[in-house]
């Protein structure tokens, strides 16, 4: 085939791909293919759609996107609110299908990580002044740090940072739960001190949960990359990839029971829970005034209710504490929530002043 017809062929193929080809051009193209079978291979390849990204990438992008939409107050309008019929006891049946990303459970242990070894208390002591934001039970707060980083502080939480914030590093201390959207700045590492771990931010958006009464510290990554170091094991670092969640148990056993320590003390890497029905990422649902429970024991749900409604929940029976529920709550009041829970699995409760008693 000479050069002229080659170019002619490319032109016809381009016209076909762009959808601009005339009837006449399409006929010509078929004719040429008949005359020159050696072009067939290229033609066939071009008619195939290009490879899509692997689905996990779109999943990650979508999860990050949804969190961003939530932060910007979108998607609020007509969320299907929870009704009794859509509420199920088990996470595996019912309308509330859940979607769990199974992401490789791999904590990489590489080399030595240098951390500025100051306990939170010391940090505060050494500086002349520090800023602190505290939220009470039942309230939430949105803070902008000096570097522009956004922090959404959940109820009953505290975050503080010193005057030196931003000089060399950006360090904050957190008790409770917060979602961070960190401004990227590779020169000034962003570090979050919690009870027994330091989280170094390599990427951008994630949720940290470290309530004193919780038995574990949880951190879930939505986008970017973070690195977690345990205070008592500074030479191990755990890198989290998007949609992974790290759980570190706070209730450490006695130091001398080595066997237990190895088993119980081991951080667990798991995946972020994601409900398909209304595109909520469970770990960050609190930001949107939503409570998402996925197969959660009642005692855990009670903790959330205590935080949100500033009440105290008392249990009279150990069995009831372990009842498990799955569901999403939005604007419901406390008594409505309890009533819905009751519909799902029978419980008896009473509310007096700020006390809830569950039989």
């Amino acid at each position, binding site marked *: 085939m000479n050069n002229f017809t*080659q*170019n002619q062929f*490319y*032109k016809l*193929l*381009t016209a076909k*791909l*762009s*959808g*601009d080809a005339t009837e006449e051009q399409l006929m010509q193209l078929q004719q040429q293919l008949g005359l020159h079978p050696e072009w067939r*291979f*290229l033609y066939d*390849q*071009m008619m195939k*759609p*290009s*490879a*899509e*990204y*692997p689905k*996990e*990438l*779109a999943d990650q*992008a*979508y999860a*990050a*996107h949804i969190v*961003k*939409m939530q932060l*910007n107050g*979108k*998607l609020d*309008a*007509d*969320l299907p609110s929870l009704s009794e019929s859509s509420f199920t006891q088990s996470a595996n049946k019912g309308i509330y299908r859940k979607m769990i990303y199974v992401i490789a459970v791999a904590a990489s242990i590489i080399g030595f990580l240098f951390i500025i070894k100051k306990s939170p208390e010391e940090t505060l002591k050494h500086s002349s002044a520090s800023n602190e934001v505290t939220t009470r039970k039942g309230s939430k707060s949105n803070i902008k740090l000096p570097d522009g980083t956004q922090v959404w502080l959940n109820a009953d939480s505290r975050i503080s940072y010193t005057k030196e914030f931003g000089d060399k590093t950006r360090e904050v201390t957190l008790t409770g739960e917060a979602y961070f959207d960190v401004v*990227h700045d590779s020169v000034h590492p962003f570090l979050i001190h919690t009870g027994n771990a330091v989280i170094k931010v390599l990427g*951008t958006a994630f949720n940290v949960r470290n309530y004193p009464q919780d038995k574990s510290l949880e951190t879930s990554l939505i*986008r*970017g990359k973070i690195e977690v170091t345990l205070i008592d094991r500074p030479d191990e670092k755990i890198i989290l990839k998007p949609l992974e969640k790290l759980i570190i148990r706070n209730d450490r056993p006695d130091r001398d029971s080595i066997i237990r320590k190895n088993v119980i003390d081991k951080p667990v890497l798991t995946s972020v829970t994601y409900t398909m029905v*209304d*595109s909520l990422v469970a770990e960050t649902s609190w930001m949107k005034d939503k409570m998402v429970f996925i197969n959660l024991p009642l005692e855990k749900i009670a903790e959330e209710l205590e935080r949100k409604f500033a009440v105290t929940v008392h249990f009279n029976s150990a069995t009831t504490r372990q009842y498990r529920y799955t569901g999403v709550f939005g604007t419901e009041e406390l008594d409505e929530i309890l009533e819905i829970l009751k519909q799902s699995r029978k419980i008896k409760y009473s509310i007096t002043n700020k006390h809830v008693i569950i039989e």
Partner: protein
Amino acid sequence: MLIKDILLLQNRIAYLRDEQAYKQLFYHFYTSLHRFAISIVHHNETAEEIVSDTMMNLWDLGTRLAQIEKLNLYLLTSVKNACLRHLSKKKLDTVQLSEHDFLAGKPDTHQTPESQLMLSEIEKRINESIKDLPPQCRMVYRLIKDESLSYKEVGGILNISQNTIETHMRIALRKIRLALLHYLSEK
């Protein structure tokens, strides 16, 4: 997805604020928009941000969303404009040296053996040859081949003439053909 399916989704989002429809649209357009953004800004996270912002704007359009006839063209144009705004803001910064080329179908950092296998040998050859093309040539190829945009639309997005488009496509197709011939002769 057919154009009429996309229009249906647009209507559901516009009038019913249907989040499932929105999710479907997001997944449908994500690959091509991200790939397109990356080829302009050469930075994975920036491209992600831009695509996310563009999709958020789509939600904000409200009922006007139902009036967009060719959504892929609308989205590509929005992404392009956002990319250019980003670059002009950054124009005093140094150029990113890291060559993120996502034509192989995914960012380097996420390459796993499994996802590697998903691409057939032939696709890999094609992608490799596209990777070496000059940027504008590559973009023309993507828009014509993957988005099936017309000459006029590509010309509008990239601000180039039909002749230039044809020249770019000729270069791209010739290169791919050579790669495929090599592949065949190895077999």
